[in-house]
């Protein structure tokens, strides 16, 4: 998800509501950003509970609403949720893999007032797409993308880039053009959730990224009147972090399937108790909960951020990355070269680069850990020694 085009509000209101309706998903992308513990989120919010969440967020000024997951199409009440969201005045975005969609539903969503559909592709060809998705889904997605345009929705196509597909960037962009996408989001995997487990196999090399960047620039120019290309480069090779979420608790509000509210969809991994909408109103949790206040402002910062003049620009980077890579979420994001952990991160990236180059492309490397409930339960059971199981 990008923050492109969103003006930062100084008042700090949850303008963007991301509703992760369910973690059920027919696909098994090994870079999925959902928590590794997806199997623990069975107690999903009801239709009525979502209605209340939407109403209260809207009253606070939320305008954008993303229905996401997992796969939101799994929810039978999706049509109802869309209709209510639209009635409340949200701009409604459906973020989907396209699996579970058909023409009748696309039509029903239109009648319910859905504004926009974003479909994710895993790759530009059937074989790789289906391998990465862990299911036969490419042709169906392709057909759904055509129908989305037929019903005159604005269409965003989203492709997560990583070492296995980044060299197809030309083909990927041309596929999006063939499908008449209005926007194309080329997102690099973020290394948390499932992609963290698979980082050795997924992190693109520096050469791959530089090449992808150049190719994207070329197409940006070429297709500029037709589709908008947004390429979010990963920050692992940078020396300054990104201003994560425009600042903690300043614009984004994510609600996960069991009603837990997060300032960022990756924050579940932090050792912080986050509020649940079953115990709080949206206004209450946004303004008063510990979880939403811990990293607001600058007082929580440690050095080097605390005395750094750039802190108002990047807010010290990503809290999740800081926690994951340094063990303390209050540290500077180690992407920053002022961080004492930067060298460690750099060395790890170097190690993976070397690994990628030495890898014989004809031999299979360590198998990918696919995202599914069984693997989730296994990891849970055996937290120290993850079971590497593929689903071929």
């Amino acid at each position, binding site marked *: 998800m990008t923050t492109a*085009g969103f003006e930062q509000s100084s008042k700090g209101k949850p303008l*963007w509501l991301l509703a992760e309706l369910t973690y059920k998903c027919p696909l098994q992308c090994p870079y999925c950003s959902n928590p590794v513990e997806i199997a623990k989120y069975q107690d999903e919010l009801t239709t009525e509970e979502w209605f209340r969440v939407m109403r209260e967020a809207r009253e606070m000024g939320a305008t*954008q609403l993303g229905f996401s997951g997992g796969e939101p199409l799994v929810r039978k009440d999706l049509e109802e949720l869309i209709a209510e969201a639209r009635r409340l005045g949200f701009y409604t975005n459906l973020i989907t893999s396209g699996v579970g969609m058909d023409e009748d539903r696309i039509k029903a969503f239109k009648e319910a007032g859905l504004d926009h559909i974003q479909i994710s592709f895993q790759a530009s060809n059937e074989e790789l797409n289906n391998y990465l998705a862990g299911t036969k889904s490419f042709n169906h997605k392709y057909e759904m993308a055509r129908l989305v345009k037929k019903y*005159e929705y*604005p269409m965003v196509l989203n492709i997560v880039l990583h070492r296995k597909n980044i060299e197809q960037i030309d083909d990927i962009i041309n596929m999006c053009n063939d499908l008449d996408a209005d*926007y194309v989001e080329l997102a690099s995997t973020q290394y948390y959730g499932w992609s963290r487990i698979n980082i050795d196999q997924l992190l693109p090399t520096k050469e791959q990224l530089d090449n992808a960047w150049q190719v994207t620039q070329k197409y940006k120019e070429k297709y500029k009147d037709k589709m908008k290309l947004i390429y979010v480069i990963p920050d692992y090779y940078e020396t300054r972090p990104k201003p994560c979420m425009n600042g903690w608790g300043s614009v984004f509000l994510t609600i996960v399937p069991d009603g837990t509210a997060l300032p960022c969809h990756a924050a579940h991994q932090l050792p912080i108790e986050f509020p649940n909408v079953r115990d709080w109103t949206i206004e209450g949790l946004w303004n008063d909960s510990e979880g939403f206040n811990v990293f607001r402002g600058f007082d929580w910062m440690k050095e080097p951020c605390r005395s750094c003049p750039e802190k108002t620009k990047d807010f010290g980077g990503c809290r999740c990355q800081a926690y994951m890579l340094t063990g303390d979420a209050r540290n500077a994001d180690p992407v920053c070269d002022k961080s004492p952990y930067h060298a460690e991160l750099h060395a790890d990236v170097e190690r993976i680069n070397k690994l990628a180059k030495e890898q014989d492309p004809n031999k299979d490397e360590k198998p990918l850990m696919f995202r599914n409930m069984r693997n989730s339960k296994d990891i849970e059971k055996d937290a120290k020694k993850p079971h590497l199981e593929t689903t071929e």
Partner: protein
Amino acid sequence: MDITADQTIPEIAPTFRLQWEKAQNCYVVLYPEGMVKLSPSAGEIMKRIDGAQSVADIISELQQQFPDAELEQDVRKFMEVAHDNGWIRAKQ
């Protein structure tokens, strides 16, 4: 077609939505995963873009409502900006 010409009938492009936002106290343009807040004068122009009124109609209506303002050039300029941003298009 020249989006600023008198006889052009502008309309909101299908991938955008114009809406009054009470919480922001302004008109906003909404599009996939994004929002732009409009200034009061931009809002006054945008809300008249309905696929029925021509540029000349919009100018004269605004002129009636704000008789002291020199607004003709501003309206044409705004049409150009809104068109460049993809918010509006000329109705065929």
